[in-house]
């Protein structure tokens, strides 16, 4: 088994109100077969054995579906692999002697809770503002009762694949939440089930996004490049069209 020694610089921060800083660690015998998060597990076991404070980082599924993992690795959200979340990155990407800097998502709207863990409830509030469809209770409707063409279903599915990780915010030079917000607006604007609340949704979600203190979109498209689901900025364009229509037609 191939092993390597890595120089890690990890952001350590006690709590929201303290100022953090990068702390250097040397980690030996890192296997190329490990995932990036397993590498951090090994570091944490070492820290615990030395009576140190383990590094806090968010994770859950470790297979790219929950959206919890959230590390900026050498300045790139979710690290160097396109279309992959942090948990899907593997150590075969690195070689012996590499220096890796690990930082949390940085945005005013996402305060650091500890070390690499940030509070992303701002996203929950954007969804609560309009990212849903209202259903009447009663007998279950027939499946496939509403015809939806394949191309529309595909595009809606692309938008729906957003896992809410917020890498888009982390990578955006303006810390804008446009890609996340647009993905949900776009998904529901494409599907007939989303139409009754369509205009209201875009206005409320954009308003909530703005009030959370995210920046404006300057079309850098860095979000699309880091998004583990490779969600296209064409969904941001749809959000802009939806907003235009809704703002003009609003009573």
């Amino acid at each position, binding site marked *: 088994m191939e092993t390597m020694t890595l120089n890690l*610089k990890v*952001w350590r921060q006690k709590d929201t109100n303290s100022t953090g800083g*990068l702390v250097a660690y040397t980690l030996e015998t890192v296997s190329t077969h490990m995932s990036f998060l397993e590498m951090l597990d090994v570091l944490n076991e070492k820290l615990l054995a030395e009576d140190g404070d383990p590094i806090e980082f968010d994770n859950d599924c470790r297979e790219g579906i929950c959206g919890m993992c959230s590390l*900026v690795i*050498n*300045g*790139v*959200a979710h690290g160097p692999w*396109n279309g992959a979340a942090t948990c899907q990155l593997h150590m075969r990407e690195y070689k012996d002697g590499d220096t890796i*800097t690990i*930082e949390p998502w*940085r*945005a*005013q*709207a996402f305060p650091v809770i500890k070390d690499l863990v940030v509070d992303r409830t701002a996203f929950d509030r954007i969804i609560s503002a309009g990212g849903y469809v209202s259903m009447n209770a009663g007998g279950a409707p027939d499946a496939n009762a509403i015809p939806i063409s394949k191309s529309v279903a595909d595009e809606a599915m692309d938008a729906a694949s957003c896992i809410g990780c917020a890498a888009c915010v982390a*990578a955006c*030079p*303006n*810390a*804008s939440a*446009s890609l996340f917000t647009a993905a949900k607006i776009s998904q529901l604007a494409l599907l007939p089930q989303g139409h009754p609340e369509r205009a209201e949704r875009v*206005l409320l979600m*954009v*308003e909530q*996004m*703005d009030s959370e*203190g*995210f*920046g*404006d*979109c*300057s*079309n*850098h*498209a*860095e979000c*699309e*490049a*880091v998004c583990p689901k*490779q969600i*296209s*900025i*064409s969904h*941001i*364009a*749809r*959000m*802009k*069209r939806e*907003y*235009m229509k809704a*703002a*003009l*037609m*609003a009573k």
Partner: protein
Amino acid sequence: MLPLSKILGSSVGKKYVMALTGLAMVFFLLEHLLGNFLLYSTDPVPYNQYGHFLISFGNILIVAEFVLIAILLAHVVSGISVALGKKAARPSGYRQSGDAGGASKKTFASTTMIYSGLLTFIFLVIHIKTFKYGPEYAMTVDGVVMRDLHKLVWETFSNPVYVVWYVGTLLFLGFHLRHGFWSTFQSMGGNHPRYSPLIHSVGIFIAVVLAAGFIGIPIWIYFTGA
């Protein structure tokens, strides 16, 4: 319709303003460059006649100038607002910066829009002061007295300081347009798998043509004049 203040105050509406005013100024620049091609001629008559023709519009021209200033100011205000919002949204930046590559359109041009924009604004103030409010030379063509702006332009660009300043700032205008042009479409919701790559290429083309066209004037005059 929503109250206009609410639309324009939103992150989306702010970018409608920036996009529409930016696109309007691209059209102005294209017209400006077309007229200025007459400056490549050592004969002052065609250029001065063109200037005289514009001035003959009288009040219509003054209204147009005010509209242009309003467009410019709206663009500047929305740009400053985006820049300030960016600072507030991430007060403490990454210790190590990086680029994701791939689908990203983040470039030197896109990340320096506020600087290239403000530089262009300062340039404009000086530019208008130098020429529009500069010394009034006169000449007579076919019995008509008109302003000899050609002489002023050629005189100004015999000074290497002006030439360097124009070349330097207009280069940044080129960068501004390189990200700005395609951005106007994206900000207005114009994104289409068939046309977006074309719009992106047209943006680069327009940036190069406008920057090169304007930059060529001081260089050409400096080396052919005197």
